[in-house]
């Protein structure tokens, strides 16, 4: 048992938590602005794929990362246009974009690489000291930044007021739609980054379904963390630790991978049943500023 709690477990936890943090901070911004975004998973997949494509054509993983951020943002812009401007159902639109996020890479792999199931290997983003991906510390630094932005800056407070009571916010002159557009697009850009972290940071290729539900785990972290940046980060850390522990335990043949990997879902379900009493979502989630 003692062998499990090693430096390897610690670094694995950081490794597994980082992509969850990117996506969770994105989901948090979107939800705090009042727009549900269940398509984080889809944007992650798009980002992961586009990062590899960009790297493949230019040889530069930094350019790949940029492509992933742009692609995630573009996908989220569709979500924003549909849900804010067209006032389409946020869940329905999210479901559509989730499908597109999974389908488009699968469709394009054959076209671009003439392969099925995955892409060829490409250059990876640099690491710190040969172990930790350079994006991992960025993910952790993002948490206090988002906290500071939301609670200590004017745009952040306005963004949250758009999510709490859009009509009141609109009546005092806050451009609710603009804030929501920005928040949703930011959620896509961060999810795209999370995807790039997986495909050209952690690995050096894209495989179909490689996000393995991390977008949903990030969403669960936002809820379990009660829509606060540090809360969501703590939840992401817990879920990341569970994944890391899982990897280590599996390597030593100790536990069933299935039961342990079910942990984030089970914990979130239990949290939602009201065991954690003070869970409260933004009051204006899903509501429009005008009818």
């Amino acid at each position, binding site marked *: 048992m003692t062998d499990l709690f090693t430096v390897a477990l610690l670094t694995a936890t950081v490794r597994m938590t980082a992509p969850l943090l990117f996506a969770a901070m994105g989901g948090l911004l979107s939800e705090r602005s009042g727009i549900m975004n269940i398509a984080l998973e889809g944007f992650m997949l798009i980002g992961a794929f586009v990062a590899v494509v960009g790297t493949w054509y230019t040889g530069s993983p930094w350019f790949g990362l940029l492509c992933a951020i742009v692609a995630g943002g573009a996908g989220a812009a569709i979500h924003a246009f549909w849900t804010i401007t*067209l006032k*389409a*159902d946020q869940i329905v*639109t999210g*479901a559509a974009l989730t*499908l597109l996020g999974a389908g488009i890479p699968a469709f394009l792999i054959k*076209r671009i690489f003439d392969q099925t199931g995955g892409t060829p290997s490409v250059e990876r983003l640099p690491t710190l000291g040969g172990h930790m991906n350079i994006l991992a510390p960025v993910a952790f630094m993002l948490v206090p930044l988002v906290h500071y932005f939301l609670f200590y800056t004017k745009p952040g407070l306005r963004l949250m007021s758009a999510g709490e009571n859009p009509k009141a916010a609109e009546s005092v002159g806050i451009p609710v739609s603009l804030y929501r557009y920005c928040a949703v697009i930011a959620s896509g850009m961060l999810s795209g980054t999370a995807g790039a972290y997986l495909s050209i940071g952690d690995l050096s290729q894209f495989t179909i379904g490689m996000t393995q539900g991390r977008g949903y785990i990030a969403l669960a972290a936002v809820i379990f963390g009660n829509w606060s940046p540090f809360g969501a980060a703590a939840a992401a850390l817990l879920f990341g630790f569970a994944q890391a522990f899982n990897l280590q335990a599996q390597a030593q043949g100790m536990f069933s991978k299935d039961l342990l990997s*079910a942990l984030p879902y089970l914990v*979130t379900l239990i949290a*939602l049943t009201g065991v954690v009493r003070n869970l409260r979502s933004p009051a204006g989630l899903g509501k429009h500023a005008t009818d």
Partner: protein
Amino acid sequence: MSERQSWWRGAISPIVSSTIAVLAALIVGGIVIAATGSDPIEAYRAMFRGAFGSRRQIGETLVSATPLILGGLAFAIAARAGMFNIGIEGQLVMGAFAAGVIGTYDLGPRPVGLVIALAAGVIAGGIWGMIPGLLKAFSGAHEVITTIMLNYLALRMVSYAVNNVDWLPVNPPLQATDPVLPANKLPILLDGTRLHAGIIVAIVAAIVLWWILFRSVYGYKVRTVGLSPGAAKFSGIPWKRTIVIAMVLSGIFAGLGGASETLGLQGRFYNVSPGYGFTAIAVGLVGRNHPIGVIAAGLLFGVLRAGATQMQNSADVSKEIVQVLQGLVILAVAASAYVAMMRQRRAAAKAAVSSAPEQGVEA
């Protein structure tokens, strides 16, 4: 407008808008195909041939449509009660697994064993649908989040059972349960095809759902709750019980879909996520949550799925385009609500102008 005319409009306008949504998605999909260097006309023609080209292929189309219709019905009953069930995938997997396990035992002569195995799928799916219903009713937990979590829980639990539980009839190297006994299987309907009686189960289920929704007291309650929970409460309809039952029914339809895959098509349960959950959403939305619409939409998506292989082989368009098309269809349906709203608003404005000319119209 006469009563008759308004009925006619009521039936026609959803058909028209669904058709437009599907056509729009096919056109955008065609542009995607063209942009990646293939001929979209040739691709769709190959898809059509693949779905209808022969007796065997027609059978494949109906086989593909079966779980989609049942999944679409599952989505529809929940949606009618105002619940967005993203958990169809998990409910379907639970049903498929339960039917697969029970189906390996000798349960008696032909129809008895089959009925028991189907019932196992129904119960497992129903329980998995009931959980988010109860959570919504008694703790207000958003069903979208709970059903997503339950999907993954179902997949992990089933995977655990297949790999680790010795006393179950499972085959870990194959990642499956043992084969279902022949007496417990859904019979093949057409020789030389894989068409099984699951399609009959699906159509009967649609008829049952139609009766529940439009001929039973409970269906009236469901529709009231779905349209306006507040109004339902005022008229004394217990919304908690109504939505829990709706979610149980939803899980039952999904569980039947899974059971029919196991007992009709695969012959055993395989530990894979079939990915029907999101397609079921598309089927329900395009079918406007009406049983007849769901059958039509299920057949349509069955055509896409069954024809995709042929399209891949002869038009060199990879079959994952189907997933893209499904996403586009859902986007188009979501946007069509906007079109309907604008039309309604224009009609309301017109009515306001004609009914109150003396007061003038404020901007």
